[in-house]
């Protein structure tokens, strides 16, 4: 074993430290009183800083050095969690480029989001709690990234879901937030059932959930042989498992048709949106698919890869169309996240592992930037989220504006910003794989450029429209105390809020160069997957993507830039052109309504049905039995009282009651009645004996 490998081994054994610091921070903060605000924030940021440094050290160690750069640097550390039967369930941590890159990104972006959050949440009374949840979130996300075990990954995956539940519902007193938090958890859990089945199948057939181990019997190391076995629905076993895992990823990464929770998740505070719903948590699905890529590609004949690609493609285009018609500043970003995640999935489905993961990284930076930027806008405009009541913010919030512009250009795919290179790589991968998907993806890219331009002009262009409007609804603001300031002019935000924007902007500009084919032959590809051939470049793709990007921006300028909106009440110019379609898009193609009418209704109906079954059928039978008993006892009473005993006997027996009624009729206290019954019983018994 070389020195380098040994070093990696040591680092892998320390990978647990990366999630450990935020976890400890969360544990400490859960016990802190509400007043310990400064301590809480300091703890969170310090812990995240530690994680960030550790992740950077790990990243450094995985960088290709010397002659061994045609092979992935991978080290892992496994240990026993518990034993059952004659076997044991192992947990483990891994260190390879995929993990290291992702961990560094999560820790780094997370760190700056936390810094921003100290400003955004400055006035919230549950500040401490918020940072506790943030730390827990960071811990679970980092745990997910460093896991060398599918079950550990799944557990962190669920914990990430828990944190999103807690943070989306952070303003729990808003009914919409309370509903959204539940929706997020349940929707992702539907996907998780698929994930769970995948885990169970994988465990059954490989006998382990450890991804890599030294003996070469890890689950992923057996992917090849799984690819030879038959699974369900014409897939190989590996393909079936991959499909199941992908269903989980669909839930987490908000892929159509499990995307519905993501836009609602905007109910949480904006840094949460940035952290969970843009940069990192939703990325978990893409990361997981990347991590389990060996299963997806184990059998070339499987349709699971096409499935992934088409789901991604549909999501990319579908969400992009919705984003065009939204007015909530965060909602536009949310759908754009959906759409970008679709791009990533599409890339993975087209075989572009590197492209997908690369876009994941770059997107994390500029989407976090955009979300934090929108958070700054929201704070700067005193908790205004409706873009129609913004405008002209360029004047009031210059730093935010410039950073936001960088993020927007990166998202729109304008060269040389980060998004251009990564999206380009995706389009190239798709182009080689399926032309139709490529065309649709290009259309989605066009829409992306368009709706981002629209947002820029609505928010920063034109003049301030907020003052013209009466006090806005309580639902869109988390803070009642801000209500009175609604008419104030917007202002620039404090340094701890804009500094993260600046830092992230730098990355949004330069990050993409790591993955350009023109610079040292795609550095990122060599880092992540040196064993895979780099995709062949296709000029038409690049040219076309630049063209559609420019066209989108141009169209946006034509519609929204040339003649800015004057009043908040003014209808969207696009609404006139698109007519009813605009409403459909605005209402998100009515998917929520469809679910409400079908699945939700059906679930509730089933609940009512089974409650009724319990009440009417099961208890009904029970009560029927009880009534039969009662009836028999009544018969006895009739025979006993009316026939055997004098018919006119007193009312003394009438006072029998309740359950005792059963036999109390016979137990009238009269010795002779007992004697009669006894004699009759004897007769019956003897008669049975004789005449049997």
């Amino acid at each position, binding site marked *: 074993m070389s020195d380098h490998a040994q070093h990696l081994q040591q680092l892998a054994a320390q990978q647990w430290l990366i999630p450990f610091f935020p976890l400890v921070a969360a544990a400490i903060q859960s016990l802190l009183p509400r007043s310990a605000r400064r301590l809480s924030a300091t703890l969170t940021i310090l812990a995240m800083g530690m994680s960030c440094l550790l992740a950077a050290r790990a990243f450094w160690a995985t960088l290709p050095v010397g002659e061994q750069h045609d092979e992935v640097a991978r080290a892992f550390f496994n240990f026993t969690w518990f034993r059952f039967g004659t076997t044991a369930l192992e947990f483990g941590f891994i260190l390879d480029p995929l993990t290291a890159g992702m961990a560094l990104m999560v820790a780094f972006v997370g760190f700056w989001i936390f810094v921003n959050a100290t400003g955004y949440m400055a006035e919230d009374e549950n500040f401490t709690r918020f940072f506790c949840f943030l730390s827990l979130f960071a811990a679970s996300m980092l745990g997910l990234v460093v896991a060398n075990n599918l079950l550990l990954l799944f557990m962190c995956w669920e914990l990430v879901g828990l944190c999103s539940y807690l943070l989306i519902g952070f303003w729990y007193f808003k009914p919409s937030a309370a509903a959204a938090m539940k929706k997020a958890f349940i929707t992702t859990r539907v996907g998780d059932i698929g994930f769970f089945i995948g885990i169970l199948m994988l465990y059954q057939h490989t006998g382990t959930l450890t991804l890599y181990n030294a003996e070469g019997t890890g689950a992923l190391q057996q992917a090849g042989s799984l690819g030879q076995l038959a699974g369900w629905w014409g897939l190989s076993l590996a393909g079936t498992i991959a499909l199941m895992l992908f269903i989980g990823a669909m839930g987490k990464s908000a892929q159509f048709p499990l995307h519905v929770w993501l836009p609602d998740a905007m109910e949480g505070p904006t840094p949460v949106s940035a952290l969970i719903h843009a940069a990192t948590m939703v990325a978990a699905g893409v990361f997981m698919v990347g991590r389990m890529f060996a299963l997806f590609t184990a059998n070339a004949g499987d349709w699971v890869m096409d499935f992934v690609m088409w789901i991604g493609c549909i999501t990319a285009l579908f969400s992009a169309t919705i984003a065009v018609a939204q007015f909530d500043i965060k909602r536009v970003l949310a759908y754009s996240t959906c759409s970008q995640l679709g791009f990533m999935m599409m890339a993975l489905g087209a075989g572009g592992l590197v492209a997908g993961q690369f876009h994941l990284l770059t997107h994390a930076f500029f989407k976090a930037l955009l979300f934090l930027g929108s958070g700054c806008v929201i704070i700067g405009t005193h908790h205004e989220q409706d873009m129609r009541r913004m405008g002209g913010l360029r004047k009031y919030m210059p730093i935010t504006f410039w950073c936001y512009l960088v993020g927007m250009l990166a998202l729109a795919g304008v060269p040389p910003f980060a998004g251009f290179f990564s999206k380009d790589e995706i389009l190239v991968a798709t182009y080689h794989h399926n032309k139709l998907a490529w065309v649709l993806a290009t259309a989605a890219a066009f829409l992306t450029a368009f709706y981002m331009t629209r947002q820029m002009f609505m928010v920063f262009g034109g003049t301030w429209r907020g003052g013209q409007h009466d006090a806005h609804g309580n639902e869109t603001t988390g803070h009642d105390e801000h209500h009175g300031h609604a008419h104030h002019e917007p202002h620039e935000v404090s340094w701890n809020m804009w500094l993260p924007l600046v830092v992230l902007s730098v990355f949004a500009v330069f990050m993409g160069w790591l993955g350009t084919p023109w610079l040292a032959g795609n550095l990122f590809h060599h880092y992540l997957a040196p064993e895979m051939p780099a995709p062949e470049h296709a000029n038409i793709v690049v040219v076309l993507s630049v063209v559609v990007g420019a066209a989108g921006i141009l169209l946006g300028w034509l519609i929204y830039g040339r003649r800015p909106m004057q009043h908040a009440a003014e209808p969207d110019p696009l609404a006139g052109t698109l007519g009813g379609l605009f409403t459909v898009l605005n209402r998100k193609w009515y998917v929520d309504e469809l679910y409400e009418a079908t699945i939700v209704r059906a679930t509730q109906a089933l609940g009512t049905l089974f409650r009724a079954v319990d009440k009417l059928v099961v208890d009904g039978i029970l009560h029927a039995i009880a009534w039969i008993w009662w009836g028999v006892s009544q018969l006895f009473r009739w025979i006993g009282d009316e026939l055997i005993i004098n018919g006119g006997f007193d009312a003394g027996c009438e006072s029998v009651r309740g359950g005792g009624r059963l036999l109390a009729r016979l137990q009238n206290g009269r010795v*002779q009645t007992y004697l009669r019954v006894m004699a009759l019983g*004897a007769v019956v018994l003897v008669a049975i004996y*004789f005449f049997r």
Partner: protein
Amino acid sequence: MTTAFWIITIVTLLGALLAVTLRNLVHCVLSLILFFLGIAGHYFLLRADFFGTVQILIYIGAVAVLILFAIMLTRNVTGEEGPREILGMKWWSGAVIAALVAGVLLHAVRRDATAAVASSAPKPLSVADLGRALVGDWVVPFEGMAVLLTAALIGAVVIALEEVQRRR
């Protein structure tokens, strides 16, 4: 023997019937004594002379007298039972049940092969044999019986005394 049997049987049955149907309690007791006498007669007929004697001593001498005392203690000596209830629902149902029991028992007797055994005219047991057996093999039940009798005696006293104490 057969003739004697039938005569005594008729007496016994008559005594029993009257004892359960007459309304005057004292008449009932008198009929009961007749019944006891009949039973004693059967015992003699069956060569269980000792039991015949015991029957007369205990039942007629003790039980019947006891019943008479009870009658006198509870109501006026010739007290009647109240309105006649024959043909009432209760009477009929009781009679039917009794008839059913009789029917079942008679059926059992008829079915049983041993019922056809004729008399082998055994010689009477000596009282001395009985006494030896009682204090020999059967001493434990015998002692138990003694305890039972004592308990009954004490019980009867306590029940009677209870009222006395309460009155005090």
